[in-house]
C-alpha cells in the first residue's frame, strides 16, 4: 500500500504529509515536492478542459527506482500525492483511484469542520479535526495482505 500520503495546498505547500518509514521522512518530502512539477504540468495541460469533465485523478506522476508517485487534484487545486512501493505490482490503477477518492472524501470532511481554518496544517493532535483524517490515512498505509 501507500508508503507516503501528502495533501498539498493550492499554493503548493504541504497541509499534511505522512510516510511510513518515518526515519527518512525528508526523502519523501523531496519526492513529493518534486512531483509537484509534474502535477503543475498536468494541471496546466488540463486547463483547457471543462471543469466538470475534468478528471481529478492525474495518474502516475513519475516512477523512481523504488517507488511510484501518483497524483490527484481537486477542483480547488488541492493536490493529493501518494507514493507507492513499486515492488507492489498487485496494486492496480483502479485501486489507486479509489484510494484517492477516499482521501478526497476525508479531506472534504476536514474542510467541513467549522473549527478548521482552510490553509492550516491538518494536525492529528486535534481530536475533532485531524484525527479521523489521520486514521483514514493510516488505514491506507497498512499493507493489505
Amino acid at each position, binding site marked *: 500500500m501507500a508508503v507516503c500520503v501528502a495533501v498539498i495546498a493550492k499554493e503548493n505547500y504541504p497541509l499534511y*504529509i505522512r510516510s511510513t518509514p518515518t526515519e527518512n521522512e525528508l526523502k519523501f518530502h523531496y519526492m513529493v515536492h*518534486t512531483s509537484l512539477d509534474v502535477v503543475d504540468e498536468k494541471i496546466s495541460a488540463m486547463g483547457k478542459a471543462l471543469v466538470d469533465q475534468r478528471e481529478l485523478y492525474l495518474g502516475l506522476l*513519475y516512477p523512481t527506482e523504488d517507488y511510484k508517485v501518483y497524483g490527484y487534484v481537486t477542483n480547488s487545486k488541492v493536490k493529493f500525492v501518494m507514493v507507492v512501493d513499486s515492488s507492489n505490482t498487485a496494486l492496480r490503477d483502479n485501486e489507486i483511484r479509489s484510494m484517492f477518492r477516499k482521501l478526497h472524501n476525508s479531506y472534504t470532511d476536514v474542510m467541513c469542520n467549522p473549527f478548521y481554518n482552510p490553509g492550516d496544517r491538518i494536525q492529528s493532535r486535534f481530536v475533532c479535526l485531524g484525527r479521523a483524517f489521520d486514521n483514514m490515512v493510516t488505514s491506507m498505509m497498512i499493507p493489505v495482505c
Partner: protein
Amino acid sequence: MSVPDYMQCAEDHQTLLVVVQPVGIVSEENFFRIYKRICSVSQISVRDSQRVLYIRYRHHYPPENNEWGDFQTHRKVVGLITITDCFSAKDWPQTFEKFHVQKEIYGSTLYDSRLFVFGLQGEIAEQARTDVAFYPNYEDCQMVEKRIEDFIESLFIVLESKRLDRATDKSGDKIPLLCVPFEKKDFVGLDTDSSVLLGLKRHYKKRCQGRMRKHVGDLCLQAGMLQDSLVHYHMSVELLRSVNDFLWLGAALEGLCSASVIYHYPGGTGGKSGARRFQGSALSAEAANRHRPGAQEVLIDPGALTTSGINPDTSTEIGRAKNCLSPEDIIDKYKEAISYYSKYKNAGVIELEACIKAVRVLAIQKRSMEASEFLQNAVYINLRQLSEEEKIQRYSILSELYELIGFHRKSAFFKRVAAMQCVAPSIAEPGWRACYKLLLETLPGYSLSLDPKDFSRGTHRGWAAVQMRLLHELVYASRRMGNPALSVRHLSFLLQTMLDFLSDQEKKDVTQSLENYTSKCPGTMEPIALPGGLTLPPVPFTKLPIVRHVKLLNLPASLRPHKMKSLLGQNMSTKSPFIYSPIIAHNRGEERSKKIDFQWVQGDVCEVQLMVYNPMPFELRVENMGLLTSGVEFESLPAALSLPAESGLYPVTLVGVPQTTGTITVNGYHTTVFGVFSDCLLDDLPGIKTSGSTVEVIPALPRLQISTSLPRSAHSLQPSSGDEISTNVSVQLYNGESQQLIIKLENIGMEPLEKLEVTSKVLTTKEKLYGDFLSWKLEETLAQFPLQPGKVATFTINIKVKLDFSCQENLLQDLSDDGISVSGFPLSSPFRQVVRPRVEGKPVNPPESSKAGDCSHVKPPESTRPLNMPSSLEIFIVPLLSARDCHEEGCPGRTHSLVGEDASTEDAHRMSYMLCQGTDKTLEAVLNFKYSGGPGHTEGYYRNLSLGLHVEVEPSVFFTRVSTLPASSTRQCHLLLDVFNSTEHELTVSTRNSEVLILHAGECQRMAIQVDKFNFESFPESPGEKGQFANPKQLEEERREARGLEIHSKLGIRWRIPSLKRSGEASVEGLLNQLVLEHLQLAPLQWDVLVDGQPCDREVAAACQVGNPVRLEVRLTNRSPRSVGPFALTVVPFQDHQNGVHNYDLHDTVSFVGSSTFYLDAVQPSSQSACLGALLFLYTGDFFLHIRFHEDSTSKELPPSWFCLPSVHVRAVEVQA
C-alpha cells in the same frame, strides 16, 4: 567512449569538430583570447554554393570519443589548430615536432591541421607554409579569422571529396563495414568473403550498405546538404531495420531526427550564441521555400543516387515529397533510437546524449511531460564509475535541463544533489564555495527568498521541511567556507522565518549554534553582498520577542506640558478662519490618526510601552533594546530584559530623551538577541497594534519638585477630581483650627523656573465650608524667582477649616419650625402673644423643639431685671405654653438655667448620638502649581503640578442651639448659644469681650453674648452686584452669608484646648437662621423716646418730679428705603405690681399735658421726624409708659418688628425742697 558531452544538441550533428589546443607553454589567458577569436568563425558559407558549414570547436576532446567518429561523424575530429609560443628560431624545430605529436593523437581522422606560432619573427616566419601561421604577438594577429576561414574551406574540400567518394562509391561488392570501437573485436576473424551461408553474406552486405548510407547521410548533413542527408538516413533506416543492426539503426534514426530538427528549428535547440541564432533565422527564411538549392541539386540528379550501387531501391525514396520528419515523429524516432541504444551497454554515452538532445527538442516544443520522461531515462543510464567531478557535472546538467522544461522543483533537487556532491566525503578538498553557490541557485526552486520581508506578511506558506533543510545546508556550507557573517545571516533567517516549524529541541539547537557563531561574528543589520550579485538583506528578529502592541506613553501628569490658553486660541485661528468646516475636520481626523495628541518635552525622559512575548521554550534574553526614532535627535536608553519561557504578554517600557524639538516618530525598536543586532521597524511587523507613533516634542521646561511640612498621605483623592495628583498630604485639624502649610519648591530640572501660578480647587463636598479654606500670599515666593536649577523656594499656605458648627441641620430645622419666634416680636408687648396659635395647634410637639423654642421668645418682662433671674422667666413662660408641654418640660426654672449651667442631660445624650454617626469630616483640595520657564515658556507651554490636600476635620465645639433674647435696649440683644464640647479634652470658649467658659469633655453649656444689633442694610452689597443674573434665592443666600460673616467677626468666638495647645475659631455662621438674623438685625425704623430730653432706652428709670410736667419726645429715624407713616401713637401709662397684675387705671395719677396721642407725619427715607408731648405725674411711684400704635392700614403693611419702641420707665419722685 565514456565521456558524455552534456552540452550536445541535435544541430551538433551538422558540425565539423575542430580541436584547438595549445602546445608548449601558452598562458591560459593568451590561449583563450585566440580561442575566442577562432570560435567566432563558427559558420562559413562555402563559396560558389549556398551551403553553410558549421564548425564546433573544442579545446579539449578525449581521443577515445574520436574513435566513435565513424558512428557519428560529428564526433570525429577533422581539424586541429595548435597554438604555441615560440620566441627563438632554435626552439622552432622542437615546437614543430610537438605539433606533429599533437597531430598524431587525432591523426586517423584529421582532414587538416594548422599551427599558430606566436612570438617568432625572422627567417623562419618568412617562409610561406599553409599549415603554419606566424604572428609576432597575441595582439598583432588580425589575420587569424581569415586563416581560420581558409582552413575551414580546406576542411570542406576534404569533406566534400569524401562525401562524393562515399556517395558515388561504385565498388559495390566491396563496401567496408563501419564499426564502433566495441564492435571491432566481434568482427575480428569474420571472413566476409568466404562466408558459408549465403544468407549471412547477404545480411552482412546489407549491414555494410546500411551503415555506409548512414555515414553518407552524416557527411551530407555536415556538408550542408540537409535534404540529401534525409534521403540517405531514410534509406539507411530501412536497410538496417531489415538486418536488425540496432545500434546503427538507432544512429540512423537519430541522424534523421537531427536533420529534421535542423530543418524545423533553424534557431537551434541548444540555446547557444546569438550570432548563430541570427544566422539561423536567416536560414529559416531560406528554409521556408523548402527548396534549398543544394538539396534540389541532388534531387534533380537521381543518377547519382541510383547509380550509387549501394541500394538500387533509392529511386523510391526520391519520389517522396517530404523526407523530413514532423515534430511529433522526431520524438517518436528519438524514442525508438534510444530504445535501440539502450540495448548496448557500451553505447550508454550515446544514449545519454540522445536523451539530452531529445529533451532540448521537447523543451522547444514545450512538451515538458515527455521531456521529463526522457530525462528520467537519462537519470537511470548507468555509465561507468563516474568521477566526482563528472557526477557534479551530470547533476548540474540535469538540473539545467529540468529548469529548461519548467520543472523548477526537480531542477532544484538535482542542483542540490550536485551541491552535495561538491562536498562529498570522498572528495579530498571539498568545494564548499561551489556547494554554497549551487545551493543558492536552488532557492527559487524551493520558493525561498532570503528576504525576511517576504515572510512577514501573514503566515508562512511554503514547504517548510525542505526549506529548512536547505537553510541548514546554507548555514553549514557558509560556515565551512569560512564566512561566519554569512552563516549568522542564514541562521538568523532560519530562526526568524521558520520559527513556527521548529520543534522545541530544534529551537534550542538553532539558538545554541547561533550564539556560538555570533560569539565570533555578531549579526549586523548590514546587507551582505555575495559575489554572484545576490544581496542578503538583514534579518531583524521581529519574532524574538514578538511585539504585539506599541504605545507611546504620555508624560506623568506632573510633567505634562500644557499650552497656555491664549496662545492656543491663536493657533486655532491661524489654522483656519472658520470655526467649523467639514473639510478641515476631515483632515484633522486623518492627522489625529497618526499624531498623538500629547507632547513630549525636550530633555525629559519619554516612555514607550511594548507588549511583548517570548515564543521560545526557554528564557529569552533581550539585550540593548531601545527605540528607533526619526525627526528629532533622540537619546535612546536601551534596556535589557529577560523573558520567561513562552511568556504571556509582558509589558516592556523603553525610554529615551529627546534632545531637540520637533515631531518625533517612533519607527521601531532595536534589539540584540543571541548576539544578533536587529532593527525592527513597526511598518514591517504584521498584526501589531499601535495607537500612533508620532508625537510632538516641545522645548524644554523646568521641573518642579514639591515637599511639604505635612506628612504624605495614603489617601488618594477621588478620581472624579480630573487632575492627576502627584503628591498627597494630609492633616488632621479641629473644626475652626488653622494651620500653616509650608511648601518647599525645588527646581530639579535644567531650566530656570520663571513663572509660577497657584490655584486651588476645593473638591465638592457636602459639607458647608465657611471662610477661606486655603489662603496664601504668592508675592513673597515670587520674589525669589526666577528659580535657577537646583534652587529651592518656600511657599506658605494657610489652611483654615471652618465647617458648620451646628451639630446637624435638622436640629436647626426644628428650631425654625418651632415658629414661636417667627413673629419676632419683642415679647414685652403682651398683645402680640395671641398671634401665634400654632403651638397649641400642634398635636405632638417634639419635646426638643418646644424646648428650643422656649428660650427663643423669652424676654424678661422688666428691663431692670438681669438675665440670670430665672424666677422672672418662669412667670413669663408658663402662660405661653400648653399645660402638657409645661408638664413634660418639668419646671423650666428647675431644669433650665441660662448661663454657665448644664443644658439638659437629654441634650447631651442626643449630641453624643449624633457625633457617633458622623464624627470625622474630610475636606479635600487640590493645589495646582502652574509653572514655566526656559525655552518652553517662550513657546507658551507650562506645567502643572498638583498637590492633593486631605484635611480630616474633627469636631471641636458644637452649637447645639441658638436663640436670641432681646436685651433691655432695643439696639442690643442677647445671643444664646448652647455650646457642646465634642472633643475628649477640656476646652475653653471665649468671645471677644466675655470671660472664658470652661467645658469638660462631652459637656454642653449655654452661653449668652450680648451683642449690638446689626445694621445689615448698611453693608455694601457687593455680592449682589456680582451676581446680577443670579436668581433671588442665591442672592438671598449670599446676603445671608455676608451677614453671618459680619456676625462672626463681631462675636469672635474662639475655643482653646489647653492640653493640646490648640485653638481655633468657632463660627455661628452656619446656625443663624432667618429668625435669629431678624432678631439680630436693627429695625429700619429707629424709635427714640426721650424723657425730659434724655434718651430713655435703659434699664435705668428716668427720674422726674411730681407735679412738674415731663417732656416726652418720640423721635422716628427712617432707615428703610421707603417712606413710612403717618403714624398715630398713644402713650399708655401703667404700673407693674410685680405680681403679674398691671394697673392701667391711672387716670388719677398721671395726666397728659395736651393729648396722649401723637401724630407723626410721613417720614421720607433717611430723614427724621419727631413729636412732642408732656406728662404730669401727680403721685410718686414707678410708672411704665407703653407706647401703642393705632392700628391702621399703613402700619400693617410693615413688619411688626419695625415697631419696636423702647419701653419707658419713669420714676416720679417728690420734689425736694
